[in-house]
């Protein structure tokens, strides 16, 4: 199946269009999202009827103690995991009303991911890893490679395009992950503890990179972190506890900065 056709599905709908007051349109709307984990007869409610709206261009940090449901929130809102109740709209489309295949295609064209453990494909080079979402989006091989190299240059790895993950440092690997997440210009990037495996200096570089992308390109980013400094530097800080949102601070709207 040619994936070019699928890109059309990710276009904004009137429901999420920009408001006249200059506030960016809502990119992601979560309503009453509930997620329960079941192990045998034991049930653990990881998300308890959570509501959240993320607007275009926001950099949202999600913080909370371990087990508060941060990663579950990210997995559910991105459609990586299923939900037990509620709905999640991305660009006005209900993720869980789609089939698994449609949701997967939607992910390929509209989302980027940065994981704590980098999660690069070990048998692919840096360039091959970065071009993967582009190829999935139906872009031709030559163009995809050009764009991948551009993205790697942008994250300061233009000289490492032909290296495999095991030949890169942790910081370099995470920068490749960021390049991969952004390569297809997704509507939203999900970052789960992107600095968790990095030393302070490298972590700062990666965070700065994400901030720059958010500031310069208006890239919407939702990142889960334990790091107070990263949380404090985000435009919006959401706090979680026991599967519930317990705080939502809009500190510096991205649109206000730009």
């Amino acid at each position, binding site marked *: 199946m040619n994936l070019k056709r699928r890109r059309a599905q990710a276009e904004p709908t009137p429901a999420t269009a920009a408001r006249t007051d200059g506030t960016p349109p809502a990119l992601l709307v979560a309503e009453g999202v509930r997620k329960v984990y079941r192990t045998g007869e034991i049930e653990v409610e990881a998300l308890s009827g959570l509501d959240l709206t993320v607007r275009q261009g926001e950099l949202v940090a999600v913080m909370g103690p371990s087990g508060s449901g941060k990663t579950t929130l990210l997995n559910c809102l991105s459609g*990586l995991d299923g939900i037990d109740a509620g709905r999640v709209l991305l660009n006005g489309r209900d993720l869980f009303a789609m089939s698994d295949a449609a949701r997967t295609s939607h992910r390929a064209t509209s989302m980027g991911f940065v994981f704590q453990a980098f*999660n690069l494909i070990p*048998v692919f080079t840096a360039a091959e890893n970065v071009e*993967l979402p582009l190829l999935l989006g139906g872009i031709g091989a030559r163009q995809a490679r050009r764009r991948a190299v551009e993205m790697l240059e942008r994250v300061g790895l233009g000289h490492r395009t032909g290296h495999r993950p095991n030949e890169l440092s942790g910081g370099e690997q995470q920068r490749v992950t960021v390049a991969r997440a952004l390569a297809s210009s997704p509507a939203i990037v999900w970052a789960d503890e992107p600095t968790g495996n990095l030393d302070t200096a490298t972590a700062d570089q990666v965070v700065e990179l994400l901030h720059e992308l958010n500031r310069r390109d208006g890239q919407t980013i939702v990142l889960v972190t334990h790091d107070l400094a990263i949380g404090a530097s985000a435009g919006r800080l959401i706090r979680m506890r026991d599967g519930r949102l317990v705080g939502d601070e809009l500190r510096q709207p991205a649109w206000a900065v730009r």
Partner: protein
Amino acid sequence: MYPNLTPYLVGLVGLALAGTLVISLRHGVLRRLALRQIARRRGEAALVVIGSVLGTAIIVGSLVVGDTFNSSIERQATAALGPVDEVVVAPPAQGGEVARRLAPLRSDPEVDGLLVLTGGEAAVGKGDGAGRKAEPRAGVFEVDFAQAAAFGGAADRGSGLGGPGPRSGEIVINSDLASVMDARAGDVLTVWLYGQPTDLRVVRVVPAEGVAAAGAVERRRHGFVAPGTLAEAARKARAARPAPAATPGSGGLGARDPAAERLAPQTFVFVSNTGGVKGGNSRSDAVAAKIEAALGPLAAKGKDAPADQGAADQPGAIVDKPKQEALREAEEVGNELGSLFLFIGSFAIIAGVLLLVNIFVMLAEERKPELGMLRAVGMRRGRLVRAFIIEGAVYALVASLVGVLVGLGVGRAVVIVAARIFETFSEEEGGFNLFFSFTPTSMVNGFGLGFLISFLTVALTSIRISRLNVIAAIRDLAGEGGRRLKRRWVVLSTLAAAGLGAWALLAVSQSRGVETYLLPTLTALALCPLLLRLAPRRWVYTGVSLAVLGWGLAANTVRPHVFDDGSTATFVVLGSVLVFSAVVLVSQNQELLTRPLRPLVARPSLAGLATRLGVAYPVARRFRTGAILIMYGLVVFTLVLLTVLGNVISSSVGEAVADASGGFAIRADFNPSGPVTDPSTAFTSGRFAGKVAAVAPLTAANARITGLGRLGALDAAAVGVTDAILDGGLFPLDERMAGLGDDRAAWRKVLADPRYVIADRFLGDQGAGPSSIDYHPGDTLTLTDPRGGTAERKTIAGTLRSGQAFYDLARGNGPVILSQRAVAAQFGSDAELSSALVAPAAGTSDEALAADLQGEYLPASLVTTQIRRQVELDFAANRSFFQLMEGFLALGLAVGIAGLGVVMVRAVRERRRTIGVLRALGFQSGTVQRSFLIESSFVALEGIVLGTVLSVVTSYLLFKNDPELQASGIGFPVPWTSIAVLVAATAVASLLATLWPARRAAATKPAVALRIAD
């Protein structure tokens, strides 16, 4: 099988288990670690056990096949002979004296019975017209039934003959004769005793066991008549016989009339040793010596006795040890077939070992972080190895025990198929049935070998695993890889290379099979550490593997006699060397080889991405992919080699028929007591006029050969031929003496000059292959008449390409062919006109002519053999046997396919995180499944193609280097259809084996995969 191996294997297994037990008892923490790993990862433990089970099963299966053959032949021999351990055959004139001299042996403590029979061969017929049944060579005996019943005591199943004896005009027949004649009690049979027809009524049918099979294993159809019947028939025959006169066809053998002398019954003395049917065999040599001592000068001279001793012109009594011979043959055949299956199975065993290594390495990969932690908290490398050894010993023990049971099933399956093949022999060769059987020795040996292979594999792999970088292991990072070897190891390996190289040169110069392939390979490997200091790794491995591969393919051309020792080990080493080197070559150059796939993987489609991923993993994981490639490559290599060689052999059937028949399609054997005196006339006149193109009479005598190369004294048939041997066509020669223009010239030389002979190619061959034959045309031999003592020096003018038409004309080895005049001059009356070769006229079928001849000369007990049919039957049996071996080897393929499935199951588990990422990035579940299927197909196809190409090239080189096959003019027939079916079936089976893991991969939920992984 192999009882001599048992003590060593038991000892080694005991040592391994005792060592493991000591480690377990002394280090409780290691024991807990090992055992809890097994309990914790039951699925993985099951995979390791399955990998090991297959190896043990194949070994046990091979041994069971050997046991079955051994036991079946032994059972046939012991059933047919019963209490008969020795048989003394006395000529008519000496029968009474022989029996008298042996009588005192009845009181010997090693002998529990003597039974005297008189008898000879006779044709038997029943009915006439289309329903006529006939047996041209039945044994007809007179015996005291009361004595026969008591013969051999009450041991085992009795003597096999008892009840009231037949009266005049009656006959008791054994079940084998009854079956052929379709006869039962009350039927009347016509028996041609010494050519005189006598009607006898069947009074009883007795089992063809013990005495009723009358002491012979080969000829089992017998009847028993009333005392005096034979003497009366002989008297009538002598009276009816015209005065002896030399006939042109018989070559004029002198004044003595041996045929007339044979018109009297022979005397047979059966001797039963104490110790029962089987136990008595151990006394056979001692009792035979006592018999010969008792016979004194009446004993026929053994082949080691000087030729000038003994009474000239006295044939002498022959002492046979039929049971000992049959049991020895049973053991030999059992061992040979067991070894053959073990040889074929060895490729599957190597595949099993690699599977085990692969699984264990993958297991360790998964445990790497915890192994790193163990090392970090202070566990020494040695202790890590010991913990693995405990774990490995448990796997090996369980797997070997289960493997023994599975092996019994494998052996049973092979025996079922083999029994069907041997059923085809039974009609032609007197019956051979396979009875599934196994011995405790084989079970112990199979268990021991399987256990040791698994244990050693796991132990050695553990040493490799234990050499991990602690930090890299804890952080689950890729190892450092390619650490530089210390200087002292480089020096040592270079010295080893020099030593191995010198040894290799010596071995190659002497064309020693295994060493010719193995030593140069080891030399090249030992050079690697030095070369790695001088050049990049990829260059070194590519160069070394290319050199080894080149040598593996070229060695047989450079040293044409490398396979002459007939050792199957040479083929195992050759196959392994070729496949291992080719796999290293491919593994080091995968990027280059997969370059043609680039347009496919660069496509911006799901299929393109799946292909990219499917190819990327095998290319990146060299060790794992290499192990699977070797598994596939080895088995496919052998399967295709068997298929191609089987086809080459089958294609040469026409050539073999021409070689064996020399233009004569039929051999007619006469009963010595009633020969056709002038077959040349008899077979071309009367009802045979126009049906026969040529007749070549054969005169045969027992002879002894000495002074031929390294061979000791040999019994052989001296065969006399006339000019008629060239009338039907020509028996082609393998080699001929220098100076003789062609094969016909060599034959003419022999026909004209009594100093020359044509010899069988395989005189003295004990199955050790062509290297045991070291004589050639131009060499001389001494041919001796063992009865008369006349010895003459002969020169070999040529060696026969096939001696089949001349086999079994006399006792002992293959034929030495002379002119009939030369045989008559040296062997006198001991040379019998025993057979004739017959060439049917154009338009006459072999089968019809053979049946006509046999029917016409039934009273003379003439037996015909269709040479063409015999050769074709041999080839058909060969083909079936090749198919059986291919079927057995398919087990190895099952190992390979199962191995691929297992590796893919492990890969899915290992790559859960990657699968999660791919799904997160937008890979459809179907694309993930497709990428796994592409990956397994890529590896399987690479292995299949590698094995097939190597095999076809190797078989072509084997064909090219075989002068006989080259001369046959059959070309190089490659069975492409069979190979295509084999390749397709293997590819499909591989795909099916990986379908389940691929589906599991596709069903992986991305969030779960990422959550678990993180």
